[in-house]
């Protein structure tokens, strides 16, 4: 039983092959032997010669022969003959052609430009109408051997339209030569289709057998279409039905897996947006509605750093995101400390007033950024090591930037946990939030710790903004689109718990993605919000509530 594999796209093959070493192995095995290639080249040269000089019947046979050989130049030669662009050169048995759309003359066999075309005396070859009629089908068939993978794909689609034993043969030959996985996949599918439609019962059964391991919805519908036909024997029917069912199961599994990954990916974005809030809201109890604007500041810092790097050291531009990380932490963190010192400090113990004042701050920051940078979105480019994707079995696509953001979000969370649990500052921070009076009595400067804690939360948000700049539009409204979600994550996960933020964001992300197919993106979100509102009734302190005295604040 042969499985239909999906391998990475050609342009990214090299890098993806590192990830999927198996892919390399398989494509190495599939390379056609060099000796056979040489024999084909000789036969092709002979056939082209016959085309140029033979009579009508010889030419017709030569066309058939060329189709049979399937040389990469076949399409170019045949279409040149068809459109009277093929010519003989006086005084030699060389055949040249004028490329499609004009350009210098090239050698028919190699495709290389002819030297000194002016010096050559050429004579155009005219094919009779019978030959031209034959050429019309032949040109579309030999396209399957063309050099351009895109042309091969298109030709595959054309060939399927006329299923017969001959086309099946052609496809088999093409399959032997094919090296590009995407085209190979298409040819396999086309071959199976042709065999299912045109082959005898035995061929059909064999084709079904081969297809039953597929993970393509196209194959499934092909098999189901076979069931609708009257001229299909019972055993073929049964086999087709079973194969379709097994594909269905596999598709469902893949679909679920894909949705879980998409959910985790969305969850990691939520995690980045909310993790800073876990400090300012979760630990300090300050409702910071300007939190979203800290994300925005981080994203704009990324933009500024990128511009600066481009201006100062263009060679390092691919690394500008890395430079942006500390810069964003400092910018957003400094803004956080400033806000704490000027506004938030005066409002401790008055949470509702804090909420209003920080909303005012968020308006100021938004309008400030809009005034400085302008309202339109800013372009932040993805570095090369973050663009691209891997395609998994079943068509699931993992883009690198999503993967990076997932890893990055977890790393940020881990670093934050280390800072809180293992550093002196973290210890002092926890002491102040648990019992301010006692902490002060122990000589901890609570005012300064408050400012630094707020700065830490804001700085982390700024770092999150760097990551968000890679996947969303950098605009003054960037923060607004995350603020409700971030608060939902923190409230749902449990205030003051890093595990809560992780759990909350992942659960919400996955839930969102599982609801989306049934309810649509918008309504799915509405349902999630309603579910959270109901969930809070049941566990007012969230999923990972702090227990004991620390939870009683």
């Amino acid at each position, binding site marked *: 039983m042969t499985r239909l594999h999906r391998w990475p796209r050609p342009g990214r093959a090299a890098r993806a092959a590192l990830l999927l070493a198996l892919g390399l192995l398989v494509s190495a095995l599939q390379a056609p032997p060099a000796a056979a290639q040489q024999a084909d080249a000789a036969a092709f040269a002979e056939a082209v010669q016959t085309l140029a000089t033979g009579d009508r019947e010889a030419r017709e046979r030569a066309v058939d022969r060329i189709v049979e050989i399937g040389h990469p130049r076949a399409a170019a030669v045949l279409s040149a003959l068809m459109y009277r662009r093929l010519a003989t050169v006086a005084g030699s048995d060389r055949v040249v052609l004028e490329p499609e759309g004009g350009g210098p003359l090239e050698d028919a066999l190699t495709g290389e430009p002819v030297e000194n075309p002016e010096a050559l005396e050429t004579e155009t070859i005219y094919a009779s109408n019978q030959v031209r009629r034959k050429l019309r089908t032949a040109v579309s068939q030999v396209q399957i051997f063309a050099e351009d993978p895109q042309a091969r794909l298109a030709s595959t689609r054309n060939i399927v339209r006329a299923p017969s034993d001959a086309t099946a043969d052609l496809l088999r030959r093409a399959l032997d030569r094919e090296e590009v996985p995407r085209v190979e996949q298409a040819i396999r599918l086309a071959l199976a289709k042709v065999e299912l439609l045109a082959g005898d019962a035995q061929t059909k059964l064999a084709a079904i057998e081969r297809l039953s391991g597929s993970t393509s919805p196209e194959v499934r519908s092909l098999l189901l279409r076979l069931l609708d036909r009257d001229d299909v024997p019972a055993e073929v029917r049964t086999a087709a039905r079973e194969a379709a069912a097994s594909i269905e199961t596999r598709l469902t599994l893949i679909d679920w897996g894909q949705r879980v990954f998409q959910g985790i990916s969305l969850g990691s974005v939520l995690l980045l947006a909310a993790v800073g809030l876990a400090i300012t809201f979760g630990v300090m109890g300050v409702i910071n509605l300007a939190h979203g604007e800290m994300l925005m500041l981080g994203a704009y810092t990324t933009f500024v750093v990128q511009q600066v790097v481009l201006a100062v050291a263009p060679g390092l531009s691919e690394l500008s995101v890395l430079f942006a990380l500390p810069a964003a932490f400092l910018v957003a963190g400094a803004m956080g400390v400033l806000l704490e010192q000027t506004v938030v400090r005066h409002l401790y113990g008055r949470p509702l007033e804090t909420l209003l*004042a920080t*909303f*005012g*701050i968020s308006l100021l920051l938004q309008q400030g950024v*809009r005034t400085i940078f302008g309202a339109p979105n800013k372009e932040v480019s993805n570095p090369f090591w973050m663009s691209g994707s891997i395609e998994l079995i079943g068509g699931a696509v993992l883009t690198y930037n999503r993967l990076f953001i997932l890893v990055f979000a977890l790393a940020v969370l881990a670093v934050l946990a280390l800072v809180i649990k293992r550093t002196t500052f973290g210890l002092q921070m926890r002491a102040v939030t648990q019992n301010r009076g006692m902490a002060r009595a122990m000589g901890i400067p609570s005012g300064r710790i408050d400012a630094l804690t707020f700065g830490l939360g804001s700085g982390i948000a700024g770092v999150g903004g760097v990551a968000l700049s890679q996947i969303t539009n950098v605009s003054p409204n960037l923060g607004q689109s995350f603020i409700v979600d971030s608060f939902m994550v923190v409230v749902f996960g449990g205030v003051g718990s890093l595990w809560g933020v992780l759990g909350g964001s992942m659960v919400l992300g996955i839930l969102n993605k599982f609801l989306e197919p049934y309810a649509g993106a918008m309504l799915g*979100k509405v349902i999630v919000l309603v579910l959270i*509102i109901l969930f809070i009734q049941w566990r007012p302190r969230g999923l990972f509530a702090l227990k004991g005295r620390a939870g009683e604040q």
Partner: protein
Amino acid sequence: MASQPAPARAGTGVLGWRPGAADLALIALLLIALVGMPVLNALPPDSGLKLPDYMIGVLGKFFCFAMLALAHGLVWGYAGPLSLGHGAFFGLGGYCMGMYLARQKAISAGNELPDFMVFLNWESLPWWWTGTHLAPVALLLIVAVPGALALLFGYFTFRSRISGVYFSIISQAMVFALMLAFSRSELGFGGKTGLTNFSTILGFSVSDQGTRIGVYVATVLALAGSYLLCRWIVRSKLGQVLVAIREAEDRVRFLGYPADRVKLFVFVLSAMIAGLGGALYVPQAGIINPSEFEPAQSIEVAAWVAVGGRGTLFGPILGALGVNAAKSWLTGFAPELWLFVLGGLFIAVTLFLPKGLAGLWPQVRAAVAKRRGGTDG
């Protein structure tokens, strides 16, 4: 949190009502609004005092916002919970009115379905539009729908003792969810465009200046009525319990008062007033769409109340009128400055004017009295 309204004392004043300074100021304001503005509008165009026609609509919208602020201030200022989702009730009331107006338009054009449903190729009216072409049904829905949402939302949140910032965040999630839901055209409320292009209300053309003045007068009267109702409630025994809940909810509970139900009652009443305000807003604005449910809009409502003065009824009205007047004046010539001003206002008020503008007057009066050494007040 001192300076509570004195409990009602019978005996003096008209029918036992002793209007305070705020009441008198409000009566003056509403009288000017009710009589003065239409008279100014009726002046001949060449006289210098002529109020342009469009100003009636602008002022009318301000008074609708004042109703919303009053409703919000009743809950936040007296019972304690800060709702960041009051735009939900305002918007729902508005949509109920919008449905009525859209049906009127369709009927006058000889259609059964409103225009946007025709564009969507809908066959028949969704069931939730049943009866919306009848004015009494529409009027009922205008208060019943926001009231029902408030009842449901309040019942669940108050029952599980969700208070403080949690209540605020959850109420924000509610209005955010409504915004997302109403943006979908499948819901049958015109999607992101909303409901607009109205023709008649109660048989009168909405574009007539006479009709506009009629709606405007109705708005001022509705505001006056809502104010009196709220005033009566906060001065009743229930109002005393409300303030007690704001100050120490647990103690009130221990004393045997059903704190949840009291809060729920006020919350539902507040939603109804907000809904009425939203309903009156729609014919004057000429449109209702999901932007009314934007979380930022609802936060702005809290800002009006904070600016005007939390814990009073006069303050929210003053705040809504003042902030909106400043907004439309400033956005006229420097729109990019407005957000700076609004943001600054939020911060300045919370830091320096915790009692808002309404608290400014008593503060000044006390300061003056102190300097005189008199016994005034």
